[in-house]
């Protein structure tokens, strides 16, 4: 258990510290599972179904998180090379390749050892998830389970609970959740315990609420956390510890910290000159440095679509009704994951709203080589945003895993030019304000 804070001076910065601790603990636990030759359920960040899996006490592993950690630890290229050597194309998702190499290495990972899969659960939020799981299925002969979450059929037309179209989709999801429960019973040999699910859902409720609150708190000026760097730490905990008491406690304390910072005007930079939104997936091969190029010039990220879709839509703050757990889980999953998909496939309106709500000076679009799921449409969203709002924006390409296509010098040139534009715009509006 994390001890309650005593003095305000202890508060600032504890979210990152405790997040780091939790994460080291997370990998240590996975390593123990692997050492005991036990297996873990493999799940993904967009619709992890952690509530169900945790109710069966299954250890879970997030291959996406394992993969991005190899980039942050600067060894992703070794893994990518190994997968490319056996025929995986340089064109495709770096996460998949890092994971394939990880499996070939028997789970050897810079943060410890990753257990083999007992089963895999994934949604269609990313089509590559499906292809990825098919690899494990053939590699280990394990059951894999797709939770097919119907997407938005027409951008802008969002169906809601109670409507015929929504309810039809919800029933489909619910049916699949029930199938998943049966599968979990088979894999674990345990009987499904609905009260345990209720507990997990109650924890998830508190976490979702905290997550929503956390994001909202960054509307304050100065912003209280950096959505790109700090946000990624929080995201890891939100995904890994969803439905657990540790996760809930962590987020409630984090909200406490951020409320404290907001109340005391404590920001992330000495001087917050430019409030930015990040659209896409971070550049993990030079994670810290990438962010520094912005912060050195007084820019900080106040929000990102990443915190939306990579939390599986937790940003909606959906609250399960634990009196009808399965139905409500289906509804929440449909709403949240559909929202995550929309923030990748139809993100324009969301970015525009985000930009308004967070008093934004500019938007950074970051498409990556690895991923067409999140990168397609970004150029078009940017075009629409600029046409409609005149919002300054930057469009830079690199990758989340493959340092061969990350050119720091080129990125810096583009980012510098972006800030020059922001500065002259600020100057101009000041001059206009004075006149």
């Amino acid at each position, binding site marked *: 258990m994390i001890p309650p804070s005593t003095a305000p001076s202890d508060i600032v910065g504890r979210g990152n510290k405790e997040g780091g601790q939790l994460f080291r603990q997370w990998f240590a636990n996975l390593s123990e599972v692997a050492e005991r030759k036990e297996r873990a359920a493999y799940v993904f960040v967009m619709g992890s179904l952690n509530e169900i899996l945790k109710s069966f006490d299954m250890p879970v592993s997030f291959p996406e998180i394992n993969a991005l950690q190899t980039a942050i630890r600067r060894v992703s290229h070794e893994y990518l090379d190994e997968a490319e050597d056996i025929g995986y194309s340089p064109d495709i998702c770096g996460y998949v390749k890092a994971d394939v190499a990880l499996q070939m290495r028997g789970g050897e990972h810079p943060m410890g050892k990753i257990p083999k899969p007992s089963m895999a659960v994934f949604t269609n939020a990313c089509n590559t998830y499906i292809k990825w799981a098919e690899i494990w299925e053939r590699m280990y002969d394990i059951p*894999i389970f797709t939770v097919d979450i119907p997407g938005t059929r027409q951008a802008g037309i969002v169906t809601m609970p109670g409507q015929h179209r929504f309810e039809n989709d919800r029933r489909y999801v619910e049916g699949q959740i029930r199938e998943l429960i049966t599968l979990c019973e088979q894999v674990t040999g345990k009987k499904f315990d609905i009260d345990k699910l209720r507990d997990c859902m109650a924890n998830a409720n508190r976490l979702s609420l905290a997550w929503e609150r956390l994001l909202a708190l960054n509307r304050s000026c100065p912003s209280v956390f950096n959505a790109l760097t700090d946000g990624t730490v929080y995201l890891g905990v939100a995904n890994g510890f969803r439905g657990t008491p540790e996760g809930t406690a962590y987020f409630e304390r984090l909200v406490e910290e951020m409320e404290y910072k907001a109340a005391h005007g404590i920001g992330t930079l000495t001087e917050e000159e430019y409030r930015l939104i990040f659209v896409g997936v971070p550049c993990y091969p030079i994670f810290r440095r990438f962010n520094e190029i912005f912060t050195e010039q007084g820019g900080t990220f106040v929000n990102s679509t990443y915190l939306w879709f990579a939390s599986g839509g937790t940003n909606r703050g959906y609250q399960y009704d634990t009196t009808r757990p399965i139905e409500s889980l289906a509804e929440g999953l449909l709403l949240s994951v559909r929202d995550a998909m929309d923030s990748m496939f139809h993100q324009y309106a969301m970015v525009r709203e985000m930009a308004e709500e967070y008093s934004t000076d500019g938007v950074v679009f970051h498409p990556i080589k690895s991923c*067409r799921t999140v990168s397609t449409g970004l150029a078009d969203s940017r075009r629409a945003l600029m046409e409609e709002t005149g919002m300054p924006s930057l469009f830079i390409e690199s990758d989340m895993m493959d340092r061969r296509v990350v050119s720091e010098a080129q990125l810096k040139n583009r980012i510098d030019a972006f800030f020059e534009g922001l500065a002259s715009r600020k100057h101009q509006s000041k001059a206009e304000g004075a006149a």
Partner: protein
Amino acid sequence: MSDPASALIDRCEAIVNDLDHTSVADWKRQSDGTERKAVGFLPVYVPREVIHAAGFLPVGVVGGGDALEIIRGDAYFQSYICHLPRSIIEMGLGGKLDALDGMIFPSTCDVIRNLSGMWQLLFPDKWAWYLDVPQNLSPRLGGRFYAHDLQLMAKELEGLGGLEVTPERLRGSIEVYDVHRGITEDVFALRREAPEKVPTWELYMLIRAGLILPVEDHSELMVEYLESASKRTAKRRDNPRVIVAGAFCEQPPMGLIRTLERAGCYIVEDDFSLGQRWLREPLRITDEDEPFGALAKAFLEHSAQGATRFHPDGEPKGEELVRQVRECEAEGVILASPSFCDPSLLDRPMITAALDREGIPWTGFKYAENTGQFQGIREQAGTFSDSIRLWSEAS
């Protein structure tokens, strides 16, 4: 000596190469001054029966190939993406899809899913629909969901001015497509039996024209072709029989297909037209069958094993291809994937492993719809063809 089959292919070529879709616009205009409607759809699979039953013309949109210069389309996308969406956006912006009253984007991959959102942003006045084909393959869940989703789409088409898709109408359309499916397979069977009579570039043009022509006309056209081509007396060459796989969405340029053939390969099976051959069996619908359910059932039970469809059954990937190799008496496989095509490229290592296990020779490359230089591919295919004939036995 005149060859009616060649003349038919010339006609198909003219239809396919008309990127402005003039034939679609012509079809829409009726003699009484009223207009019919046409709806476009993207690869891979969309049940055209539903569009047909609404009285609309389903039109497959697979990009502009190498004939279209991309001027604006590039500005709408990042660098690391296949070529198909660039050229479809280019066509849309250039008015080449004006004849289409709506567009359907099936859940083929995330690029096409994304394109459905872009389409709505760029062409707010046009109807755009994301068709969510099921990834859950149980009849009770995925089947029911999909049947309902098709009904939803039918309602949308009705709202767009289409006829009500009654069970009778839909059954009628399914029958029309059953006929079409049967003839299509006959043409492919002729190529398999006598590849010297049905060059793949011809077959390709014939099938591609079917994305644009009304299904009834296309069936007739194929029957004529079949009759004429089967009478050909071309000499069979000492070419290896190969299967081309992986090219089911963004299409290779015609020059590439011709290059493979010129390099001495008889292509006896391919997946260029996977979407049109998605349902492998005729539905043989009866008056008692609920037709939406029948389409859903066919999807669950008789779909082609494409890379864009989830395979939960644990059968090793590539087994289907191995079976095809055996059935077609093919001697090798050419894996052709569009650059940055996630489904095609992600499957490749498992497919090549299956081919290796079976000792089936293969070669692979990437292409884009506007690939202009074929020398490298010619070399590769030529060497492959030689190695099948000379070294698999001589060594």
